[in-house]
């Protein structure tokens, strides 16, 4: 019964989504108040209906209702509760339901929190958001219905793919989806602005918090996904340039560019066309990612069942939304008046450079991801574009971004002083240079890693120079400095932290060069050297988990003969699917990690192990967290509070005029 209610709620949500997509739009075009006003309750109700549907599916998983195909195929009664619940989105149908749930969540949040927005803009935003929801609800109901029943229910389910039975499944997909799907709302804002023809700095102010929310979650989702892959796939890699990872990186790059160009649009009323374009682009790339992952053109952990019908359906949605929005864009863009003028050397100029580099690097990722698919479709030849391609293209484009980041923070709006900025960065550059030299002297090897680490140090220190110069001064007492620090706009702190996070991640990435890998056949009690540490396997014992059995190698990490940590890698055998999975043992020592993996056991107590010492590796993910913290600080800025936008600045709506610009 509960399942049927969930199914019915989903159908109802579709009907409501169509109504919400049409009536407020008509209302906005005809300036009809009551029609526009129905958008808000409709958006909230739509979210509640999809939420009810999602809850019903979760309930079916919790009680292990194997009369549902979806539950039968992906669950097992012996599975721990956390994986029963997170298993809801550990499969194609459920993950698409989560997709539309988050889509509706953003609509509902705009309806509830964005009180100060003009009525017609909000009606249009919610209408466009509802079109997207309607398209994906159709997709779920017609091609991926999670509520399909089995005529004769089996007694036991087939269990979830062991690779997905991990706490990561509870965290990574929801975070990533909030980010990924969050760009739908910026897309809706862009489409609404294009329909109404009112594209001004106030629009940028309304859209910025939503972009920030999506960006924060996408950053966290990518970092979390990377860490999950790192500890679960068993060989210590954290980024594979896998098409599915690229599919999340592309919206992140476009979204990062959007955040920066929206700042220019908000402050200086410039880059309007470009900002709207980026808002469309970021969500288009999210849609493309969904297509790549869900259509079955790729095989990866993320691609669940493959069904060509689904691919075609998503492709149609993709073409309709991207094509439609770009057509609207082409129609309206030429009518926009160009905004504020700025010199090439200025904050705006730096942000333009940032956008140029970010979108170009995004394009290289796009080419590397889609070229093999295109080539195969055209010539039938099969190639894989791997890390070497991306390191050679993406890397060199990202270095100037990092170099320019602190300088851009230092430049004034309209006209900046490059020499002055460079002088104020002397300290940062010196720390970077000294750091690079010191690391080279200490570690030797290739010069690339120390240079990149130096660059990272420059970036981290440089990120705070601007803030520091506004706080500190000769002879200023500490209490005054503290008061100044508190008085600074939170968005300044946000910028500093986000930029420093990039530096931290870069440092961690560069330091991978100094990693040590050992693959040995080890006996119990025999120490194995790995980097500055030794690892000793104390014993290898069997253990029984809820739905698996495993062999655990209880081991100690020694430094100078003293035990500093314990590490327990294992191999699990999942009975329901007859599958093995290796569980890596990881200990964090300082910022580095020892990573240990167990393979085959030989007769006589020896075992094949793979050991890594990865110095500074934790910085890669700490950097991601710090970036998100920066985003959060920016979000907390008074100016950007969603409800305050109206009072903060007198809006001067610029109606798109029919005459061409200039």
């Amino acid at each position, binding site marked *: 019964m509960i399942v049927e209610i969930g199914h019915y709620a989903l159908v109802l949500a579709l009907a409501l989504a169509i109504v919400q997509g049409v009536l407020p739009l008509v209302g906005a075009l005809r300036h009809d108040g009551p029609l526009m006003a129905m958008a808000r309750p409709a958006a909230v109700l739509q979210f509640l209906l999809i939420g009810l549907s999602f809850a019903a599916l979760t309930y079916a998983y919790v009680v292990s209702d194997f009369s549902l195909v979806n539950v039968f195929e992906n669950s097992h009664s012996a599975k721990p509760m956390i994986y029963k619940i997170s298993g809801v989105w550990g499969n194609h149908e459920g993950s698409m339901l989560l997709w539309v749930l988050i889509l509706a969540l953003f609509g509902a949040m705009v309806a509830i929190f964005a009180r100060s927005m003009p009525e017609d803009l909000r009606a249009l935003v919610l209408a466009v958001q509802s079109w997207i929801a309607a398209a994906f609800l159709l997709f779920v109901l017609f091609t991926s219905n999670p509520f399909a029943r089995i005529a004769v229910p089996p007694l036991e389910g087939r269990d979830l793919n062991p*690779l997905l039975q991990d706490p990561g499944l509870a965290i990574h997909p929801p975070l990533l989806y909030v980010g990924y799907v969050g760009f739908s709302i910026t897309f809706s804002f862009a489409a609404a602005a294009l329909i109404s023809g009112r594209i001004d700095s106030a629009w940028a102010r309304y859209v910025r918090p939503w972009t920030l929310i999506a960006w924060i979650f996408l950053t966290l989702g990518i970092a979390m996904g990377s860490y999950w892959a790192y500890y679960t796939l068993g060989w210590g890699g954290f980024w594979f340039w896998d098409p599915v990872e690229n599919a999340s990186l592309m919206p992140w790059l476009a979204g990062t560019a959007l955040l920066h160009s929206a700042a220019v649009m908000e402050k200086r009323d410039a880059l309007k066309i470009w900002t709207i374009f980026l808002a469309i682009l970021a969500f288009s790339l999210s849609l493309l990612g969904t297509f790549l992952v869900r259509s079955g053109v790729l095989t*990866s*952990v993320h691609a669940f069942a493959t069904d060509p019908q689904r691919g075609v359906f998503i492709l149609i949605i993709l073409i309709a939304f991207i094509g439609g929005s770009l057509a609207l864009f082409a129609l309206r863009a030429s009518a926009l008046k160009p905004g504020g*003028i700025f010199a090439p050397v200025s904050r705006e100029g730096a942000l333009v450079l940032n956008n140029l580099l970010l979108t170009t690097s995004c394009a290289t990722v796009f080419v590397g991801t889609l070229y093999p698919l295109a080539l195969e479709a055209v010539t039938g030849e099969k190639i894989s574009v791997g890390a070497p*391609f991306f390191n050679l293209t993406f890397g060199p*484009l990202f270095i100037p971004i990092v170099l320019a980041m602190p300088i851009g923070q230092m430049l004034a709006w309209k006209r900046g002083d490059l020499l002055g900025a460079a002088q104020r960065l002397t300290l940062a550059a010196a720390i970077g240079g000294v750091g690079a030299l010191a690391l080279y002297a200490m570690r030797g090897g290739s010069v690339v890693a120390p240079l990149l680490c130096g660059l990272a140090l420059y970036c981290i220190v440089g990120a705070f120079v601007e803030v520091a110069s506004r706080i500190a001064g000769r002879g200023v007492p500490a209490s005054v400095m503290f008061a100044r620090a508190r008085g600074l706009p939170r968005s300044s702190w946000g910028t500093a932290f986000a930029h420093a996070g990039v530096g931290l991640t870069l440092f961690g990435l560069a330091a991978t060069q100094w990693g040590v890998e050992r693959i040995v056949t080890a006996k119990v009690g025999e120490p194995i050297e790995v980097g500055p540490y030794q690892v000793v396997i104390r014993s290898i014992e069997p253990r029984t988990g809820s739905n698996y059995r495993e062999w655990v190698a209880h081991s100690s990490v020694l430094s100078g003969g003293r035990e500093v940590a314990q590490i327990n890698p294992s191999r699990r055998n999942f009975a329901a699917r007859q599958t093995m*999975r290796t569980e890596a043992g990881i200990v964090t020592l300082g910022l580095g990690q020892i990573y240990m993996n167990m393979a085959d056991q030989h007769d006589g107590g020896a075992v094949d192990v793979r050991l890594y010492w990865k110095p500074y590796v934790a910085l890669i993910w700490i950097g991601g967290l710090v970036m998100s913290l920066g985003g959060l600080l920016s979000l907390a800025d008074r100016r950007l509070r969603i409800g305050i936008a109206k009072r903060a600045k007198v809006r001067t709506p610029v109606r798109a005029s029919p005459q061409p610009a200039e």
Partner: protein
Amino acid sequence: MTRKGRRLTLISCALAVVAIAVGLGLYAMRDGVVFFVTPGELAAKNLPPNTRLRIGGLVKPGSVNRTDGRNVDFVIADTLGEVKVSYTGLLPDLFREGQGVVAEGLLAGAQFKADSVLAKHDENYMPRELADSLKKQGVWQHNGEAAGTSGAPAK
């Protein structure tokens, strides 16, 4: 600076960045790209040594020979040919005789020196290139229960 001058600066900057990106891309395409072949195609193609390739097929039953702890020799075969592969390192959990694998590495004469081996990850998963080529050769055996499963590359 005039509006026109500003626009010109912007466009030339953009062109420069794009040109650099295209240059880098073309350069990287030369060695950043790896072709996928089956043992049969490899025999027909006569490629020069030290070519970087991905070879996909089935592990020939009885061919797996662990020379010592971590050095493994095995044969990847399909209906049209076979190729000897040597690999140093830990094989993925699901590496078994008679199962689908994809090995990536360098061609050294008749031998293939693999530096990574990807195995089929569960009952229904197989690297897509491999599934395609096996289907073409008519040796594809699928139990028709593909729904709801997934796999990941193991290196």
